[in-house]
């Protein structure tokens, strides 16, 4: 099997050379460029104008729009909403594609009654590509996995800006890695797959024989390679929770970037109806829910999900795993300054995140699951099995910084481990669409039930009602209950002429109502006339009762 894989690999390498096109016709082809993304979004809006509305949240420094497609119908601002966000990490093209195709799939199903009903009661804010400037690098003549936007940054904080970027030493249009034969080097080829470089472990008797760098020159001659190239702030490091001050790509301070601010402005100010943020990114709390940490909720700066919210995460995680055919996700923790954690800890909403794809299980000839200690080796084994031309073979180059040393360039192609071959995307997108649709159906849903009026003496009437949450999601996450950006459920009684309030609250704010739970209310009124009871919040939708006492 391995031999065949290698044979295929070398054939495809050969093929590449023979074709010798600037943009390689390979398995990855099909992901949307910015222009294609824009066209698709505009087409969706014009084809489904009654359900879709396209707007730009901001224009980036690279002069691209951060698009947001609002899906829904009727009073979309006051229907419970899910924000579906992709591409906060620029090189994660799959995330963009899954968000885009979610919108496309949903709109294509609007002939079905159930989808129509969903869109009449639920809103989706779809931001497919938060960092279009970074994503475009994987479509450029020189391709590399770029997560920084177009802001000019001094990544190594030495004064000059963008003074040491990559160079394409082997002329293949891709930035991969570079290894330099050197007795003082700390790296060595991995024993199970010699294409992969690993750090030598002297405690295991291993000695390194290579230096290992990304592909390029040390332009500023400071001994570091490609440490300050073009590519500014990684938006997925620039949100306000657990912000990594002064680390490369994090920006000069939290929330420094237009794209982050535009998204946060929209969600805080207009997205009052959002009950869940579904983001496609590195973190994964759908395959494996977050863990509750008691100490983390007792500190001044809260650093753990609340117990009740973790319980809901478990339920949603099970829902996700039921929908997704891809199993055995590797653990993918949250990252400092990321969108996923901001959405829970600062925005106060349920936050779900998944990379959408990971290296699937590799089986041996006996169909047994193979286990790997190295994720690159595991990926390459899978790629070999599935004829994915993912590796640039190590080839020697002349390197002016190492005149007397053997330097080779090679490695896994940029973006390949994050983004599967495009042919996989349709089915992934359908599964994720089904999942998000299902999640949305569980939205908080406030209803007025058990409404009664009874005489309470001469000219006195008692009005009673239960404010019931018919959804699975609570009307606020436990964290959201403390957060002023999460609106409480407002219950109000409005009396017409002839009625006056004797007892009870004219207006009452309810912190939260759990799924399938209720809050009881009653009033004592005097006289005859019309009255209205209204309950709800943008996150739950509104429910109203109008009655007359004669």
């Amino acid at each position, binding site marked *: 099997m391995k031999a065949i894989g290698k044979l295929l690999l070398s054939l495809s390498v050969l093929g590449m050379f023979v074709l010798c096109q600037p943009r390689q016709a390979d398995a990855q082809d099909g992901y949307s460029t910015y222009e294609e993304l824009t066209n698709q979004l505009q087409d969706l809006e014009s084809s489904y104008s009654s359900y879709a509305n396209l707007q730009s949240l901001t224009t980036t420094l690279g002069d691209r729009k951060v698009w947001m497609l609002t899906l829904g119908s009727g009073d979309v601002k006051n229907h419970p909403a899910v924000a579906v966000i992709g591409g906060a990490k620029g090189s994660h093209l799959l995330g963009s594609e899954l968000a885009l195709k979610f919108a496309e799939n949903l709109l294509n199903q609007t002939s079905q009654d159930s989808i129509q009903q969903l869109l009449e009661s639920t809103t989706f804010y779809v931001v497919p590509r938060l960092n279009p400037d970074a994503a475009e690098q994987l479509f450029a003549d020189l391709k590399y996995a770029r997560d920084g936007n177009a802001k000019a940054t*001094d990544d*190594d*904080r*030495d*004064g000059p800006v963008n003074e040491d970027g990559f160079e394409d030493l082997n002329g293949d249009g891709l930035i991969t890695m570079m290894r330099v034969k050197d007795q003082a080097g700390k790296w060595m080829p991995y024993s199970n797959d010699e294409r992969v470089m690993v750090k030598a472990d002297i405690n295991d008797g291993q000695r390194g024989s290579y230096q290992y760098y990304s592909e390029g020159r040390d332009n*500023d*001659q*400071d001994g570091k390679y490609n440490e300050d190239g073009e590519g500014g702030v990684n938006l997925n490091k620039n949100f*306000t929770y657990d*912000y990594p*001050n*002064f680390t490369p790509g994090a920006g*000069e*301070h*939290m*929330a*420094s970037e237009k794209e*982050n*601010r535009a998204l*946060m*402005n929209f969600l*805080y100010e207009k997205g009052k109806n959002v009950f869940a943020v579904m983001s496609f990114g590195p973190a994964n709390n759908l395959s494996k829910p977050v863990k509750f940490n008691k100490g983390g909720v007792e500190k*001044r*700066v*809260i650093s753990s999900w609340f117990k009740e919210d973790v319980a809901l995460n478990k339920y949603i995680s099970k829902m996700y795993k039921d929908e997704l055919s891809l199993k055995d996700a590797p653990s993918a923790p949250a990252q400092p300054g990321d969108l996923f954690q901001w959405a829970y*800890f*600062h925005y*106060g909403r349920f936050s779900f995140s998944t990379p959408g794809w990971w290296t699937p299980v590799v089986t041996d000839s006996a169909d047994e699951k193979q286990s790997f200690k190295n994720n690159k080796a595991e990926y390459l084994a899978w790629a070999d099995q599935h004829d994915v031309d993912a590796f640039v073979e190590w080839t020697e180059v002349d390197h002016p910084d190492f005149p007397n040393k053997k330097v080779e360039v090679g490695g896994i192609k940029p973006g390949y481990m994050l983004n599967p071959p495009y042919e996989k995307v349709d089915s992934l997108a359908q599964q994720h669409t089904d999942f998000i649709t299902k999640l949305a159906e569980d939205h908080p849903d406030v209803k007025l039930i058990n409404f009664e009026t009874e005489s309470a003496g001469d000219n006195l009437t008692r009005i009673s009602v239960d404010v019931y949450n018919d959804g699975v999601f609570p009307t606020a996450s436990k*964290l959201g209950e*403390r*957060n*002023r*950006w999460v*609106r*409480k459920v*407002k219950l109000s009684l409005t009396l017409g002429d002839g009625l006056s309030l004797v007892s009870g*609250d*004219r*207006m009452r*704010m309810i912190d939260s109502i759990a799924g399938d739970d209720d809050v009881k209310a009653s009033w004592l009124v005097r006289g005859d006339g019309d009255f209205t009871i209204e309950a709800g919040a943008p996150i739950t939708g509104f429910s109203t009762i109008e009655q007359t006492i004669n």
Partner: protein
Amino acid sequence: MKNLTQLFTAFLAIGLLIGGLSTSARAQSGDGFFPAIGTPPNPEVDARWDHYYNYKGITDLTKELAEAHPDLIKRQSIGQSVNGREIWALTVTNFQNGNPDNKPGIYIDGNIHSNEIQGAEMSLYTAWYLAETFGDIDYITNLLDQKVFYIVPTINPDAREHYMQEPNTPHTPRSGLKPVDDDGDGRYDEDGFDDLDGNGHITLMRRKTDRGNYRVDPKYPNKMNRVEDDEFGNYEILGYEGKDNDGDGEVNEDRVGYYDPNRDWAWNWQPDYIQRGAYKYPFSLPENRAVADFVLDHPNIAAAQSYHNSGGMILRGPGAREDVDTYNDQDVEVYNQLGNKGEKLLPGYDYLVVYKDLYSVFGGELDWFYGGRGIFTFSNELWTSYLMFNEEENSSEDRYQFNKNLLFGSAFVDWKEYDHPTYGKIEIGGFKKNFGRAHPGFLLEEDAHRNMAFTIYHAYQTPHLVIDEIDEKDLGGGLTQVTAVVTNTRIIPTHASQDLKNNIERPDYISIDGANVQAGMIVKNRDMNQTVEQKHSPAKLEVDNIPGMESVVVRWIISNNDDYTVTVNSAKGGVASKSK
């Protein structure tokens, strides 16, 4: 020794006479006064320092200052407030001497909390005083030759105006004017104060009751005293003047603003549910964003002062207990040297640390300046009850005595009956909004001068770099060793240790021009000849820091011996050159 002192005194006297003569032409031209020492005798701009400037006053005065002193003051707007007012900034320096961007700078602002108004006057006084004494007082002349002051009198102009023009207490609005739904009912700013007696001041409401907990003070009839826990009084206090405007059963619960602009800064920022008053994210308020952008554009700012009131404090960070480790020993030592001097210059003021002496708070302005930019920053809490009678200890009576004997009762709105729609017969009265936090006019100028003197000391102590020595040694074979010594003659280092820890600002460059450089190195120990070579670009050596009151030594090996120039170029320390 005594003789020497006498001689010195005589010199001083002559100096004073000469100094006096230089301005005497104007001062004694029949205007009917004689100069007081330390005050510009005949200023170009005749500003008053016994009242407060509203927005128009600030706009006019800053314009006048810039027009009267075009070589010393330039005015610009650094941005606009929520309601579209310009945020005026004055750059004060000798524009005829060097590029202001290359001079170590101090940034000064006031009034971030809109009711804490006198920071603007302290700031304006500083700009005025510097410009009006330049040329007359050598110390100030040298200071403006070497340093640059960036002065923003108010960074909350909308709500400053609201404080002055609308009914308020001494403590409001504090916020800015961006509408916020304080009580979460979906309506914005719908239940603010009501100026029931129509005098522009929001004072207190009291109601007579046999089961009350207050009594009138026998000596000062305006003063209300709480009775003992086991007694009943004959009054209850109902809170600040107001009504339940939105019918929700609460009074004054959704006033203008809400947020606290001093919880909006990008160092250890935390959201509102952790740090009450935070808005959406750091710099989500346009006024603060304007300041942040200005500071990011001016890496030469090495010192900062942000004026607040009140309590007589010279505050440094950390604001939050969680940030204790951010402020490490070397920097605290610098803060202490400056802060202790401040205590001397400002009687009644104490040098304190926010998190332990005041309260522990996230996202404050001084923490971003220091933690995020490595700028040594103080917040002075202006006005202290000490200034009433120059006494450390004050009793609760003193305010009433001060009002009676020094302000002749003008600080108080006497209790008057009022018919309230909800509370019935009540009485309204209390201290006016411009008493208790703002200085009375007759004390304002003195405190402005003293606080300015502290910021001048602070500005003076920003790094000042000199090339002390260029030493040559012939190594033979056509090679010469050039050793240069660069000294920072002030307390503040070119890089705070917080800066060094995080590489906030670029290194200082010490370069040699006009020489054929073969090698360059930083000399760690000149006596022991311990050096560290810099292999790349040896003509432009990178030095991490030039500490306060210390020197760094660098060395080049050059192969010609023509004229050359050594230049030190530091973001916060300025530029200095010396030619061979």
